[in-house]
């Protein structure tokens, strides 16, 4: 253990001398302390790990490794649950201030007002954007948040069955199944109609068949199509189930109607688009909003406004009696740490773009997708599927170009290629055997779009 005495680990301040002095005060040698291991198999001869790297070596190693990824991308034709949007410089700058980053959960409100108020602001934004009454201060991601919504519905309604629209993101559906399986809750799928939307007939008939705790519908759905949430809400409520709305593209919150006006009981989704990078899948941001009548049922932490002993505004975590540290196995969820810093980031992002900016972003996403689709159709190799249904920034296109060909044609263009859908996900189009889910955001500048279209012509 000579190397330890030399204190060459810059993250461990104690020198050998100091450790000796401390052990003296303790009155034990280190080996005495770990006597409690006795009889157990200690690590012999050290872990089989390489020697540590110093910072300069680490930078070199990292650089070599990361250069094995393909080159930089300026926009993405790939969406399906992760979206490439512009992140103003002010957003990461503020969200990464040391006071925010290196704090723990704000158990001690007097020295955590920064985190607490930021989360309160996030909750306020979510309440407005989802048009619900109450939003928690984050879940892990959209998929787990959706699964928790159905668990909550089950707690409220007790029926061991939920309905999920076929048009929900398949990874969300898989997560829902994983979460619900041990509770014996049946997850039945509501069929898609010819327009790429929830089939109202199937919904009605499935709801009539037997009791359901909840119906889950995503809008814009997996195929990019905007569901008729109002009509669905009416049907769901007629059958005394909870209506759970979900979204994967938070940018749509700028213009689409969610929440109470549709009869929603819970709105869940992913907030990654709100100033967070895709980062190969995480950390993203679970959004969870519901109604006040469920304020003993929802999962996750929530911040409330309060006062200090001098009557000044102060924020604090509240409604804690639902949580695991107090209720243990009877808690509304096991969630403890959540994605607070990402919620804070989303609050900074929304503060930065502001009301009109957020609407403008939503409009621009719509416009960009329209441009992309008309461009693709003009090449003659593509045609939109579900033409009659409105889409936000994603849509399904059929194409004569096969996936490998697609990838190689786009190899020289700095965009992520679109998602090739498996056969059978959508109806087939004559002469265009391949289908893609294409995405366009404000990042797809006209010049880049031209490059894309050039490569696919």
């Amino acid at each position, binding site marked *: 253990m000579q190397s330890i005495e030399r204190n060459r680990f810059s993250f461990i301040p104690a020198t050998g001398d100091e450790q000796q002095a401390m052990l003296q005060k303790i009155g034990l040698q280190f080996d005495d302390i770990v006597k409690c291991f006795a009889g157990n198999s200690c690590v012999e001869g050290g872990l089989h*790990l390489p020697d540590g790297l110093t910072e300069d070596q680490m930078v070199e190693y990292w650089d070599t490794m990361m250069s094995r990824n393909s080159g930089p991308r300026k926009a993405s034709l790939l969406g399906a649950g992760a979206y490439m949007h512009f992140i103003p410089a002010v957003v990461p700058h503020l969200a990464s201030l040391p006071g925010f980053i290196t704090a723990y959960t704000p158990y001690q409100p007097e020295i955590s007002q920064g985190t607490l108020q930021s989360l309160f602001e996030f909750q306020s934004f979510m309440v407005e954007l989802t048009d619900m009454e109450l939003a928690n201060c984050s879940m892990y991601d959209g998929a787990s948040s959706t699964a928790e919504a159905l668990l909550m519905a089950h707690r409220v309604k007790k029926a061991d069955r939920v309905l999920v629209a076929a048009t929900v993101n398949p990874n969300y559906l898989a997560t829902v199944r994983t979460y619900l399986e041990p509770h014996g809750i049946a997850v039945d799928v509501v069929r898609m109609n010819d327009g790429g939307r929830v089939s109202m007939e199937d919904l009605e008939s499935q709801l009539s068949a037997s009791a359901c705790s909840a119906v889950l519908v995503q809008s814009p759905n997996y195929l990019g199509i905007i569901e008729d949430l109002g009509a669905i809400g009416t049907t769901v409520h007629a059958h005394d189930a909870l209506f759970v709305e979900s979204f994967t593209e938070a940018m749509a919150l700028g213009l689409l109607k969610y929440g109470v006006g549709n009869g929603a009981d819970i709105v869940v989704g992913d907030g990654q688009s709100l100033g967070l990078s895709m980062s190969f*899948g995480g950390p993203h941001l679970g959004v969870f909003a519901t109604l006040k009548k469920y304020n003993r049922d929802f999962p996750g932490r929530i911040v409330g406004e309060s006062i200090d002993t001098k009557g000044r505004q102060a924020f604090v975590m509240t409604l804690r009696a639902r949580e695991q540290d107090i209720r243990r196995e009877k808690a509304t969820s096991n969630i403890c740490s959540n994605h607070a810093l990402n919620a804070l980031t989303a609050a900074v992002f929304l503060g930065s773009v502001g009301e009109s900016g957020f609407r403008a972003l939503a409009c621009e996403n719509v416009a960009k997708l329209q441009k992309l689709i008309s461009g693709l159709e003009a090449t003659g190799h593509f045609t939109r599927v579900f033409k009659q249904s409105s889409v936000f920034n994603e849509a399904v296109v059929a194409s004569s170009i096969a996936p490998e060909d697609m990838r190689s044609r786009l190899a020289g263009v700095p965009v992520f290629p679109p998602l090739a859908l498996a056969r059978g996900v959508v109806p087939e189009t004559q002469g265009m055997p391949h289908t893609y889910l294409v995405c366009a955001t404000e990042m797809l500048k006209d010049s880049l779009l031209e490059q894309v279209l050039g490569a696919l012509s």
Partner: protein
Amino acid sequence: MTLYEKSVAGRSAFSFGFEEDRAAAEACVPEFARATVKPLPQISELDLVRHFTNLARTNYGVDTGFYPLGSCTMKYNPKINERMAADPRLTVRHPLDDATDNQGVLQMEFELKESLQEITGMDDFTLQPACGAHGELTGMLIIHAYMRDHDAKRTKVLIPDSAHGTNPASASMAGFQVVTVPSNERGGVDMDALDKLMDDTVAAIMLTNPNTVGLFEENITQIAELVHARGGLLYYDGANLNALMGLIRPGDLGFDVVHLNLHKTFATPHGGGGPGAAPVGVKKFLADYLPIPVVVCRDGQYTFDENRPHTIGRMSGFYGNTAVLARAYVYIKMMGRDGLLATSRAAVINANYVKALLSPYFPPAYDRPVMHETVLSAKGYDKYGVTLLDISKRLMDYGYHPPTIYFPHFPPYAEEVMMVEPTESESKETMDLFCDALIKISQEAKENPDLLLSAPHDTVVTRVNETYAARHLVTSHRDKKGT
């Protein structure tokens, strides 16, 4: 003042090369017309910057001072990790892009997995879980699925009374019935009770080791033998692994499933409440139950393995918190074999040192050497009319974050205990000064209890009224407008 309260119509920090074209959007999407305007604040970029910069300044963090929050392992978060995690070659990668285009990221994930396997002695890992509780749920779902396939009557899970609240909550969320195992008089699992409870309806026992009072479970070998012999599995809550790296491995102790809190042991920042990352490791016989996909290496190419026949499915939309994993990866690479050992060694010495300094004033329940943290009692101060809460609040005036308080909740720790975890990042001087402060406060408790009762005095707000918050529920700006 919140952003809404600072908002002025017409102002904006928005800087994009387009303007709102609502009419055009509505022409494409008639549904838009149905939504009412969603009010968001309108604020200039400077005012936004000031708002959050000043908020950040009111926050206590590891970067500003000593944060001995027991069980949370608030160690130093190296700045190099943040730089790496902000690398656009990582942040601007779409998770559904082809694996061949993401060999760098996948290599990082694979190497991380291999390191975690070696550190814990487990055979395979999923990197998907987002936080500790999510890891627990993943692990318990694996056990649930395994028992469903092998011994479906096992519907209970044993959990010591000392366990963190997420343990029972996760077990229950994974469909199990929770049965509490009492602790013995040395702070470990009561073996007699265990012997009674461990029957053929029990699927597993969840243990934290060192446990939440900082003690290594002395009977771990016997526990493992007993549980295994009676057909149960052992789950390891790795939140406290910081005590053991390079010393002893959960896998070698007989644990079948392990979760790790990278945001504790592996130095990723907690961010005021996450995101973290909590990879789950399993022994070989459970590897097929891991959530998909699992990153693997085949002929030098990194790729995703979706073929896990018994998989529990998916725990999240993609593959976990890659940017958090990257930080832990860098940390492990930089510490290396000796560094991880030195870390645990220093963490243990530091905890025992703090215990030695404070014991005369705040006695520990047992005078046993501790591992990475120590639980001390402030019970004696009630005679001065002072609670542990008051002592904690007073610590803030001295510039410290209080330890974890009022946890764990089991006898003889039921009341007035604080859990102090210095971590290896702290110097002897820092700990000396902290202990001095607590000792001074113990003096103040006798001489001037009002100082404690009215504490904290030097913070941006004084003591915050939690009851008021619950009674006048205001959890959004909309609620404020309502009142």
